[in-house]
C-alpha cells in the first residue's frame, strides 16, 4: 500500500514536471496542434471540394491527423529528457520503473487528449460533420484513442530518443503497432457520427479498451529495461 502511494506520487511528479516545462515554453502542444491543423487542411485539398466525400472521409482524416500529431507529441515529450543527461538521472532514482513509465504516459495522455478533442472540433467545422450530436461516444473514443497513442508512444519514444536516426525510426516502429488503434478509432467515430445504425460502436470501443490495456501492461513491463538500456 505504501509502495503504491509512493509510485503514485512519483508518477505524478514526473507528469507534473513535464506539464510545468510544457507551460513554460516548450510549447510542444501548440506546435503539434498546428501540425494537425495543417494535415487536416491538406487532406481537404487532396480529396477535393466535394462536401459529401469529405464528410464520409472525416473519421479517417481525423484519426490520421491525431496519430501523426501524436508521433510529434511523444517525441517532444521525451526530448525534454535529453536536457543535460536528464534521462540517465531519471533512471538512477530509486523508484519503480513502472511509476516513471506511468508518469511519462500520463503527460502524453493529457497532450494527446487535448489534441484529439481540438482536432475533433476542427473536423466538425471544416468537414461539416455533426460532432456535437454524438459527443459522449466521440469523447469516449477520443479518450481511449489518446490513451493508446500515449501508451505506445511513450516507450517507442523512449527507445528512439537515444538513437541517431530517431526522426525516421519513431514513426517507422510506431505506426504499424498503432494500426489496430487507428482502425478501431476510425470505425467507432464513423459509427458514432452515423448514430450507430448497426449497433457496432460498443464492439469498437471494446477493441480500443483491449488495445490500451495490453499496450499499457506491455509498456510498463518493458520500460524499465529500456531505461537501463543494455
Amino acid at each position, binding site marked *: 500500500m505504501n509502495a503504491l502511494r*509512493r509510485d503514485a*506520487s*512519483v508518477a505524478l*511528479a514526473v507528469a*507534473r*514536471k513535464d506539464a*510545468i*516545462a510544457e507551460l*513554460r*515554453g*516548450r510549447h510542444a502542444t501548440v506546435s503539434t496542434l498546428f501540425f494537425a491543423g495543417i494535415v487536416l487542411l491538406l487532406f481537404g485539398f487532396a480529396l477535393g471540394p466535394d462536401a459529401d466525400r469529405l464528410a464520409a472521409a472525416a473519421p479517417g482524416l481525423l484519426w490520421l491527423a491525431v496519430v501523426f500529431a501524436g508521433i510529434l507529441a511523444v517525441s517532444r515529450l521525451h526530448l*525534454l529528457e535529453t*536536457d*543535460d*543527461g*536528464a534521462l*540517465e*538521472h*531519471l*533512471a*538512477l*532514482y*530509486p*523508484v519503480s520503473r513502472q511509476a516513471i513509465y506511468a508518469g511519462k504516459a500520463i503527460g502524453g495522455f493529457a497532450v494527446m487528449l487535448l489534441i484529439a478533442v481540438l482536432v475533433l472540433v476542427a473536423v466538425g467545422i471544416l468537414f461539416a460533420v455533426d460532432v456535437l450530436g454524438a459527443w459522449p461516444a466521440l469523447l469516449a473514443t477520443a479518450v481511449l484513442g489518446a490513451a493508446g497513442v500515449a501508451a505506445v508512444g511513450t516507450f517507442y519514444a523512449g527507445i528512439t530518443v537515444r538513437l541517431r536516426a530517431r526522426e525516421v525510426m519513431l514513426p517507422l516502429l510506431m505506426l504499424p503497432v498503432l494500426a489496430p488503434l487507428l482502425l478501431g478509432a476510425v470505425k467507432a467515430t464513423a459509427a458514432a457520427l452515423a448514430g450507430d445504425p448497426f449497433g457496432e460502436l460498443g464492439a469498437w470501443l471494446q477493441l480500443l479498451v483491449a488495445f490500451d490495456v495490453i499496450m499499457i501492461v506491455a509498456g510498463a513491463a518493458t520500460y524499465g529495461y529500456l531505461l*537501463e*538500456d*543494455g
Partner: protein
Amino acid sequence: MPQTTIYVSPRSLGAPDRRPPAVATAELARLFAGSPALAGVTMTIQGGRAIALLGPNGAGKTTLLRIVSTAIRPSYGSVEVDGLHLNRDAAAIRERVAYLSHATGLYDDLSARENLAFAATMIGTPDAASRVARALADVGLEARAEDRVGTFSAGMRKRLALGRILLGSPSLVLLDEPYAALDVDGMTLVDDLLAAWREVGVTVLVASHAVGRLEPLLDGRVVLERGLVVDVHGEGVKHVPPAPPAAVRPAVAGAAR
C-alpha cells in the same frame, strides 16, 4: 578544519571494520563501439573512506563511476556496492548511491527549487520542502531559488546538482570533476561537502584533476590510465593487477568465444 554547517543526512552504516567493501570490482571492463574505456579493473574500496580517482582524459574514470552508479552495465567482470551485486540488486544500489555526473540531469524549464522538489519526490526525502530549502541554502542558491535553471551558469548548475545529493542519505557518493566550472567559493563548498560526508562515514569516490587540492581531504587515491589501474596509494583502497585473459568473464551469459 572548521566545523561544517552543511546538513548531511546520516545513514546507519555499521562499524567501519564490519562493513563490506563500499566498492568491489573484479576484472571490470567496458567497451564503447568496440573500443575499451575500461580494460580490466580489480579493486576494493573500504567503506567510509574518501578516495580520489585520478588520471588523464579518457583514462576511464567517468566510465567507472557510471558503472558503479548503475547508469551503464559492464561488458566484462562484476561490481559489488556495499556487498550488493550490480546485476541482481541494482535497485538496492540505487537507494545507496548518489552521483554527480558531468551532465547535471537538471531540467532547464524548471526553477532551482522545482528541480530539487522533483528530485526529493523521486528520492523519497521526508520533510521534502524544508530539506529542499536547507539544501538550497547549503549550496548558496537561496537567492536564485525561483529562477529557471536554463538561465544558470555552469557553476550554478553544478551547485544545484550538489544540492540534489544532499536530499538523500547515500552511503556512497560519486563525484565526477566536482570542481570543474566552479568559482573559488564553489570549490570551498565542495571541500566542505567532502569533509561533511567524511565526518558521517559516507564513502566518497572523486574523479578529478585537482590532485593538490584533494590530497589533504582524502584517504587514498587510485590512478587510472587507458582503462587500467596504474597506481594505488593511501588507506582504504586495494588493487590487484589484471589476471590472464582466461579470468576475464563477459558480464552476460552466452557471449561467444
